[in-house]
């Protein structure tokens, strides 16, 4: 059943490239394996040279106070966990958004959600003197959620939120918010000096406390996403057909909105407003398993986690002993992947 959705190309013509795809389950399995490799690499690689057996011992035979083990357990492990959580949230939310808005460009960054989170964080730094990534999370969360609510409300005043309108509303909200952010930043150099490091997106300095307060939101959002996946397949046939097949459009829209708000806010408060990551992995997932959202959504999540954790590792290696923030690496490394996918003609059609 899952594979029937991938046999014919949207234009109706059989497509050789699509026929050569691996079964979706195998693709997802390989992706999970790759994620494990990347996660282990992230534990083992860094500015401080730590032998691999010491990395293993940090978990199998913990010695409190051993400096190498402390680095692995207290500095590297939180980054892996936060990277996986945030990356998965970015990937899943983009997959849902692209399905719900039927716009291949939908991404938390383009729907005004990142801008809302950024405005809240700048306000917190500028007026309330908040100074740590942990202090930012609730502001980022509230800002992202508020922006998403505004986008969904305005986009659907007086009847269904048409995909085009939703996208345009998101762009308008970004356009309204960004100037305020800039205004606060150029008024006060101190705010800029803190904000610029948050805004590029990073996994450093977050600590497990961030993950420990946000995981319930992530789990809740993922459960909603799982519930939505099957319905997305029907929605892709058009609103009327979906309604005819028994999908309740209003319920589905509300659940979509809630899932998007929760996941986007979680991702942004974990790692900062990383643009494109979700968009790129959702397209990659579409290219790998086709348009079946039951496979596409989880694969987008796993790919998001891989890319973000890998970007973090790369950022630690290329300019060692300094670091390049994961968000910058993800943007610079993720974009060529997206472009390559697009050039090969995959993933562009919804």
């Amino acid at each position, binding site marked *: 059943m899952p594979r029937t959705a991938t046999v014919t190309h949207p234009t109706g013509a059989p497509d050789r490239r699509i026929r050569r795809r691996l079964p979706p389950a195998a693709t997802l399995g390989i992706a999970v394996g790759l994620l494990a490799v990347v996660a282990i690499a992230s534990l083992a690689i860094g500015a401080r040279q730590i032998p691999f057996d010491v990395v293993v011992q940090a978990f199998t035979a913990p010695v409190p106070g051993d400096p190498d083990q402390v680095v692995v357990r207290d500095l590297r492990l939180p980054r892996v966990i936060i990277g996986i959580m945030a990356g998965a949230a970015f990937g899943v939310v983009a997959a849902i958004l692209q399905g719900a808005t039927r716009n291949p460009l939908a991404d938390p960054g383009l729907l005004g959600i990142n801008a809302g989170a950024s405005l809240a964080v700048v306000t917190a730094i500028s007026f309330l003197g908040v100074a740590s990534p942990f202090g930012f999370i609730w502001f980022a969360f509230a800002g992202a959620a508020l922006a998403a609510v505004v986008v969904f409300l305005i986009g659907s005043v*007086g009847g269904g939120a048409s995909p085009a309108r939703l996208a345009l509303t998101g762009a308008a909200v970004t356009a309204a918010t960004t100037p305020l952010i800039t205004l606060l930043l150029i008024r006060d150099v101190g705010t800029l000096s803190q904000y610029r490091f948050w805004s590029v997106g990073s996994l450093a300095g977050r600590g497990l406390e961030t993950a420990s307060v946000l995981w319930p939101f992530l789990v809740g959002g993922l459960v909603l996403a799982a519930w939505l996946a099957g319905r997305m397949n029907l929605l892709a046939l058009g609103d009327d057909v979906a309604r005819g097949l028994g999908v309740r459009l209003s319920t589905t829209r509300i659940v979509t909105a809630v899932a998007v708000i929760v996941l986007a806010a979680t991702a942004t408060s974990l790692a900062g407003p990383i643009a494109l990551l979700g968009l790129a992995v959702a397209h990659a997932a579409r290219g790998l398993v086709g348009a079946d959202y039951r496979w596409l959504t989880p694969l987008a999540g796993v790919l998001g986690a891989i890319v973000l954790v890998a970007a973090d590792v790369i950022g630690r290696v290329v300019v060692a002993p300094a670091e390049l923030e994961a968000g910058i690496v993800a*943007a610079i490394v993720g974009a060529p992947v997206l472009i390559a996918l697009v050039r090969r*003609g995959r993933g562009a059609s919804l």
Partner: protein
Amino acid sequence: MTAAPLVAPAAAGDPVEVVAGRVAAARSRRRRRAASVLVALTLVALAAAVASMVLGAAGLTVGEVVAALVGQGSPKAEFVVLRLRLPRVVAAIVAGTALGLGGALFQTTLRNALASPDILGVTGGASLAAVGSMLLLGLEGPAVALAAFAGALVVAGLMWGLAWRDGLTGIRFVLVGIGLASIVSGLLGWLLTRAEVREASEALVWMVGGIGSIGWPELATAGGAVVVLLIATALFSPRMPLLSLSDDSARSLGLDATRARVTAILLGVGLVAVATALAGPIAFVALVSAPIARALVGHGQAALAASALTGAAMVLVADLVAQHAFAGVAVPVGIVTGLIGAPYLLWLIARGNRKGSDG
């Protein structure tokens, strides 16, 4: 579309003529609406330009301003009017027109409201080149403008080269553009986090766009280029309807949309590059002008002239607000353009929803 009552008085008996009469009436109504929108936008732009000429710290009267404009004013008035205020107004018109029209060309050609040069990385390329030249090479003034111009063209060229495959289809071009925009913003983030914080702040000011300190030589160059591009766009505009067809429908009608698309995008890139070199990437003018114009004119049309006028009016009004609304603080115009353009666009979207038409 409401049916027009009593539009074909002579043809009471003939259904064909009744329909033809109604179609003609609907067309002329639409044309009248488009014309009145153009007139209204021109009036708004004029009013803002006049206010911008008259208001200011120098405390000149209207008479003194007019006298200075025709060369009869006091030296002080002439300096304020001809060296400070008039260049500002002209720069606002040139940059606003170019960005509004450039954005409209992009969005129409790529058939996606999100596909504006801001989001596709063209203005981002300009920012990256300009900020890089400021932070890494320590350049200033015209050199930065030149770098911005080159940056916009380089990103557009890359987008072109990477997206081209037996023609130019909308969605591939847009996705490549988004990819490039993200590389550019990653590199910009890297530059800004590594720079000394005061320099980063200055770069940020350039990046929102401003028209405060533009002299006549730059204006003449940019203005001339924009006029040439405007004329080219006007000559090209009869072919615009072709762009609103999907690839498949164009092909099935036996038309080749590629050449029209290439022309439209080239014109758009040229306009945006010139405007950005002149005034910095004045935020969101390119993104919101065309949707506003299209909502005002009514749907189904590219509304190029209205988009250009919307851009000009928006920058003029925004500059007026930027100069006078923030008690004593000179705010770059790019901060205000988003602040006034975006809520207006949101309002139009919400209103369009209620009427059931497409925002």
